[in-house]
């Protein structure tokens, strides 16, 4: 069953721009321009795209913050802008750069207030809070005012705030921004567990592609308010990021090796990086070529970096090379 549905959704913004000394002209900006997709219950979807692509606008349309200019939006079967309050009880949202918690209250007091705002039954609240405290290790700062928390602590608090009422769908906007590796990992594990154990559907907006690699089974890529990719990570790599890299460690430093249907992208002492397209050659053939030229000690194959893949998609579209639906 689809928990998120968009059909031919548009959202325009009218911007008044200075044109000449006194005249101001009306410019219509199409932030979301004929967007359509569906997300099934239990999916973790990565929603990515360059700045200004319309990601935040989409999330705001799905949470009932913005009213669509045209088209049909449904989240858990409700029309977000018209049924905002019933919807709010069933979804959670977290905006990484915004503080939802009460700035000058202890973290626990914020949770208590949310319990009453969402009318969470006492028993369920106690059970959820106990679990989140354990998994996210909140106890050391549970009684600290939010303004005194570190970023990592605050983000953990914000995530709990978005999940206390057992939402069916959560929208997370940059949940790991500014966190260190350990904190990022903790947040990701928490989200994976919530998805597996509670069946929470997650829609993740992020610039951190490691988030996507660790969490998402499906990726939606948005550009200029339109969907340019919808599919899995592997398919995305196969299609755009054909290049893998063979990293070889030689016994002794050497000049760049000569390889057919591939190229050496970097040489660092005895280590060399060889990029290749798997359609044209393969790691075994390259390894044989290398071994014929120098004494080989070790080798590894690196998958294409998702970041490169996405960068290539944007570049391709900007050059006007892609058609509308790639």
């Amino acid at each position, binding site marked *: 069953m689809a928990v998120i549905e968009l059909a031919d959704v548009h959202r325009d*913004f009218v911007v008044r721009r200075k044109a000449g000394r006194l005249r101001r002209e009306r410019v219509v900006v199409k*932030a979301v321009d004929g967007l359509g997709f569906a997300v099934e219950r239990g999916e973790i979807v990565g929603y990515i795209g360059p*700045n*200004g*692509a*319309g*990601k*935040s*606008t989409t999330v*705001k349309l799905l*949470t*009932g*913050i*913005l*009213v669509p200019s045209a088209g049909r939006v449904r989240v858990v079967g409700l029309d977000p*802008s018209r049924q*905002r*309050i*019933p919807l*709010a*009880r069933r*979804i959670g*949202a977290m*905006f990484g750069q*915004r503080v*939802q918690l*009460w700035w*000058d*209250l202890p973290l626990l*007091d914020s949770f208590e*207030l949310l319990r*009453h*705002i*969402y*009318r969470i039954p006492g028993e369920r609240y106690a059970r959820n809070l106990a679990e989140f405290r354990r998994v996210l290790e909140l106890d050391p700062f549970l009684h600290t005012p939010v303004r005194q928390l570190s970023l990592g602590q605050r983000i953990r608090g914000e995530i709990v705030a978005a999940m206390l009422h057992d939402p069916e769908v959560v929208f997370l906007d940059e949940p790991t921004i500014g966190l260190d590796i350990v904190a990022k990992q903790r947040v990701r594990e928490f989200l994976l567990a919530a998805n597996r154990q509670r069946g929470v559907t997650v829609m993740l907006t992020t610039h951190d592609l490691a988030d996507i690699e660790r969490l998402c089974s499906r990726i939606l890529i948005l550009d200029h308010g339109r969907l340019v990719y919808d599919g899995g990570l592997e398919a995305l790599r196969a299609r755009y990021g054909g290049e893998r890299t063979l990293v070889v460690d030689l016994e002794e430093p050497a000049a760049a090796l000569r390889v057919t249907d591939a190229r050496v992208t970097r040489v660092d002492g005895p280590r060399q990086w060889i990029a290749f397209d798997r359609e044209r050659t393969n790691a075994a053939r390259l390894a044989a070529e290398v071994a014929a030229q120098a004494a080989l000690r070790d080798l590894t194959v690196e998958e294409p970096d998702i970041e490169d893949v996405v960068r290539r998609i944007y570049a391709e579209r900007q050059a006007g090379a892609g058609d509308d639906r790639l």
Partner: protein
Amino acid sequence: MAELLDGLGLWGRLTGARIRAQLQYRTSFTLDVLGNFLLSFLDFAVILVIFSNVPQLGGWSVAEVALLYGIACLSFALADLLVGELDQFPQLVRDGGFDLVLIRPRGSLFQVVTANFQLRRVGKIVQALAVLVLALGLLDIVWTLERAAMLVVMIPAATVLFVSVWVAAICIVFWTVEGRETANAFTYGGNFLTQFPFDIYDRWLRQLLIYVVPLAFISYLPAAFLLGKPEPLGLPSWLGLLSPLVAAAAALAAGSIWGRAVRHYRSAGG
């Protein structure tokens, strides 16, 4: 009914949390309340200055104007305590903070006005109440059942009217973020106008304040009724008794304007 009680309970919790936070800085809080209280007396001094030059204002004596002032300022101070946070609303709209309000399962207006309850606003209430009690003591009002009823309903009705004007006026920021000054003209300007007898205003302004923005029902008509003054526009004197009905209608209108205006919210950024 259960809904209403639940809402009241939550209001208590949210304002309680704000008060606890404000009381963390006790000295600063005490000075704030005291400052508010003293400043509002300066406000009343303006009226005394006027009366040191003229014996009457539009046919109203100093005690009668004090009654007007007391009703207008007490109800305004109560409205300020309840929804004064709306003054910060343009900022909330500009930086997109209103987003967070909209993702929570409660009325958006309710959340905005409870966002930062300021207990220091009680200073003004104390001052206005003092002036009102003083004026009632100085005046020889002939008490009838109707006048007693007027005395009971006038403050709640006037508070609801000010709240409605405040809510309706601030909605302008959904269209233009620079709308704050315009909104202030209605709220603070309205409070100023209601402190004086309407007899001194031009006919068009009086009519505007009765039929369009019904501020006449805040202090002027109730006070005229208590004092048995003839209504200068030739309207029946019992008109003041209708203030609860006018207040209810204004509240419904303001709620409806807010509901429509929220759909024009543009958030911030892409």
